[in-house]
């Protein structure tokens, strides 16, 4: 680990001023489960680490405001998986959140950090995408909101500009009946990074969305508006054809976690399974 200055602002405006001042020399610390590893491995060498845990406006909280469920920047994954509103409204997000790391990691790691780290394999990204989440962004220049579907640029890259940070993630609270499922393939059952991950959501209207992780430079969202996928009377072969079309955007690579061929095959296998389960969950909703 290379020496760095540590600062712990108490307010958002202090944090933003510091971030503005140090720009690319600063790293933000929330849970630290990605940052500390990078510091230790010297893959990140910030001059300043800005600890966000004491920033009053960013304290852990999950709140309902104007039709949005808002999850503050320092809320950890355990907060999310244990919150009754989240469990009721966004079960697939809970399914995803509980696969991140281990119990110890989830007690430290934040949802916002998982998103801002922008790993193509970020477990919570596909669920947040199908639920239509947005990121609330702030800088010394003001605030903005970014649809998560436009947030990811590439591996470890987001649309955030120097001086900007995400203050919260918000999900639309006004849910039409829907069934959603998060699934992934890993090399082992406990604590693993996804070889592929996906989230499927079937709405009562018949609209079906899929979001995919670990199969391209960024997690991405696609939709079938035809209603065909959700239709109980349509056969598997016809559905496969639609799924294959949705999957054309996926561009998996071969790496230590799996070959391109395996990932491509698993995308289809797991999409079918997630679709079936989502339809069943919609029926039960």
């Amino acid at each position, binding site marked *: 680990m290379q020496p760095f200055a540590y600062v712990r602002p108490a307010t958002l405006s202090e944090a933003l001023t510091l971030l503005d001042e140090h720009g690319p020399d600063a790293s933000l610390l929330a849970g630290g489960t990605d940052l500390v590893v990078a510091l230790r491995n*010297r893959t990140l060498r910030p001059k300043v680490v800005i600890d966000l845990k004491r920033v009053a406006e960013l304290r852990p909280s999950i709140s309902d405001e104007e039709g949005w469920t808002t999850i503050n920047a320092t809320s950890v994954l355990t907060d999310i998986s244990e919150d009754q509103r989240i469990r009721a409204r966004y079960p697939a997000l809970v399914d995803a959140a509980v696969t991140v790391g281990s119990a110890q990691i989830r007690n430290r790691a934040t949802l916002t950090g998982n998103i801002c780290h922008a790993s193509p394999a970020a477990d919570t990204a596909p669920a947040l995408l199908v639920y239509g989440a947005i990121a609330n962004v702030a800088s010394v220049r003001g605030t903005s909101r970014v649809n998560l579907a436009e947030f990811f640029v590439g591996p470890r890259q987001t649309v955030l500009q120097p001086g900007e940070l995400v203050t919260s993630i918000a999900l639309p609270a006004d849910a039409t009946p829907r069934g959603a499922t998060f699934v992934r393939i890993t*090399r082992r059952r*406990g604590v693993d990074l996804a070889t592929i991950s996906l989230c499927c959501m079937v709405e009562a209207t018949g609209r079906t969305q899929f979001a995919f992780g670990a199969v391209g430079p960024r997690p991405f969202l696609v939709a079938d508006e035809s209603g065909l996928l959700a239709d109980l009377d349509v056969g598997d072969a016809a559905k496969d054809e639609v799924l294959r079309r949705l999957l054309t955007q996926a561009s998996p690579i071969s790496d*230590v*976690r799996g070959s391109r061929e395996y990932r491509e095959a698993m995308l289809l296998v797991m999409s079918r399974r997630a679709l079936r389960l989502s339809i069943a969950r919609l029926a039960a909703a």
Partner: protein
Amino acid sequence: MSIGTSERRSGGHARVTGSQKFVADIGLEQMLHVRLVHLNCGHARIVSIDTAQALAVPGVVSVLTAAELPQPMPRYGPVFNDRPVLAVGETKYHGQPVAAVAAESKEVAEAAAELVRVQHEELPGVFTVAAALDPASPLVQEPELRPNDPLNHTNVLSERRFGWGDVESARADLVVENVYTFPMITHFAIEPHAFIAAAEDDGVAVWTPTQNPFQMQRILATVLGLPVAKVRVHALDPGGAFGGKQHPKYEPLVALLALRTGRPVRLVLTLEETFQEVRRTSCEIRARTGFNRDGTISFQDIQSDFLMGAYADIAERVIDKSNYLGCGPYRVPNSRTVVRALFSHTTPSTAFRGFGTPQVSWAHESQMDDAARKLGIDRVEIRLRNLAGKGEAFLPGDTPADGDWAVSVRKAADAIGWGTALSPGRGRGLAVAVKAGATTGASYSIVRLHWDGSATVLAGTSDMGQGARTVLAQVAAHELGIPHEWITIVMGDTATVPFDLQTSASRSTVFMGQAVMRACQDIKAQLKQMAAELHAPDAPVVELLRARFSAVRGEVIGVGSYRGEYQPEHPLGGAPSFYEFTCTASEVEVDEGTGEMLLVRHVTVADVGKALNPQHVEMQDEGAAVMGLGHTLMEHILLDDSGRIRNLGALDYRIPTTKDLPLEMHSLLVENADGPGPYGSKGAGEGGLMATAPAVASAVTEATGVVIRDLPLTPERVWLAINEKDA
């Protein structure tokens, strides 16, 4: 009392509460911190090393390269003196240290290590068995290191042949021939290797979590040109070792640094560096087995090639032990087993729990299954038809089968529900394996019975989690007739405890157990004499001691030893003192869509002679079984085309977690008091992993119809095999 009861683990509380002191917890006054410098490539020629910038960093005390070391470069190893203290002229594998920085703090050492400029040129390397055997490949080892070896112009360190009967003319109704591969895996002890050295009087003291303090002492004395008595090895209880901490690694380097700087130095490896330091031998095994129609074996013809890495370490012993029992625990009329240890530009391999047995049993057990399927014989039945009976000389001229092994097989079959109906998608497998237990070497113990009846036991064993402290205390308590709690076991300091060959090969309970027992018997003889002298033949021990020592003080000292004699003609240098026999049975459920596997039930049976501490033995066998699931299901070191480790670290080298455990696990024991250790015990603790792979793979075959001969059985590999079958 004590023997056969599950006494609480000595040191267990400290381990689970984090209060145990490991080498990395030790700090000495004025201590320097060391960081190794390595290149991010495999085989490379070192053109030049510029240490000026690193030396200029405030706080840097020394930057050591090959040029600063004595010439010729000191080389060392448990058998061959081939490993240099630092890379000379070239790096032979990804991560071989080319320099070492010693600084006032770890951070300074890290920063300075990055400033050591190593100009180098990548060279083609040998990373596979095929490349090692290709005469066109580069030579890994300089021929002058083995001047009298006719193989010194090849990448073969040694080739061993063993067998009996006549394989060529043996007739068989069925011949099965297949090639099996076993992956490179790493030990993954939770405690990474750590080393401290300090000049002491006119010698050196070293702190290291070694399984083998006396070999360490001998090798350090040789490298440093010191008398053995001037090298003191503090062997702290390792936090897991599994063979990976058996032989010297960077101890000579830290010792030389300490002597050069005149300051104590400490090196704590990262997990990544341990991957680059030690591993298990990977191998390819070509097995040709002849069977008679009734399933009995006619001949076994096995050719194994072990890719051992850049230095010999203990590889020759690994291949010998693997090859000697290449036919497994079976009655085989004709056998020919040939094995080679091959150099490669990869991490040097070393001892690893099971020591060559999991590799060869993967082959001989999968062959049994293949034959059973082709002959239409039940897979358990075919094993029972071939298993050596108790007392049978299944290895001509050697120690006969020392257990009723069929009992273990039946026990495992019953526990897994062999022959009962299976749910869809599920299969069962059962496999056996046998390992030659420790052969030669001595263990000594000194037991001091104090005037109040309590005792101190000196034993050079390493307690690396297997529970040696507890079991040795149980033996002493039982023999001396005193409570377990009155005994202190002292280990791990070569200046205090007498010689022990090593803590390996499941030998400690048998060898050191016997030494402790004999030391106690020595004490008992002295007590008898004392009782006679005091005319109190029936006095309790404590009264005798008080009577004898109250005025003049003193204690009773007992000495005990146990040794296996060296037999130069024996392929292993000595007969196995016992066999470690295991039977594993597993039931798995395979998801044919994804290749993912769920272990529904997993059973191991260990023939241990006598379980001195049943809970410890079960825990050891259970731990071994879980470790075996690693190389069976997920563990493998992956190399790129230039020999770089692609999955360097915990993120992409996966070991089983608690969530990967079988839904049900059973560790069963067979106890017939037929071992050479105290109270009829045999060595234990490796068995659980020796037959894991063939048992699980056999279950996968029953579930899916596909046969996989390469490990690990990753979901992708299983899926691919299923897909190819369907295509």
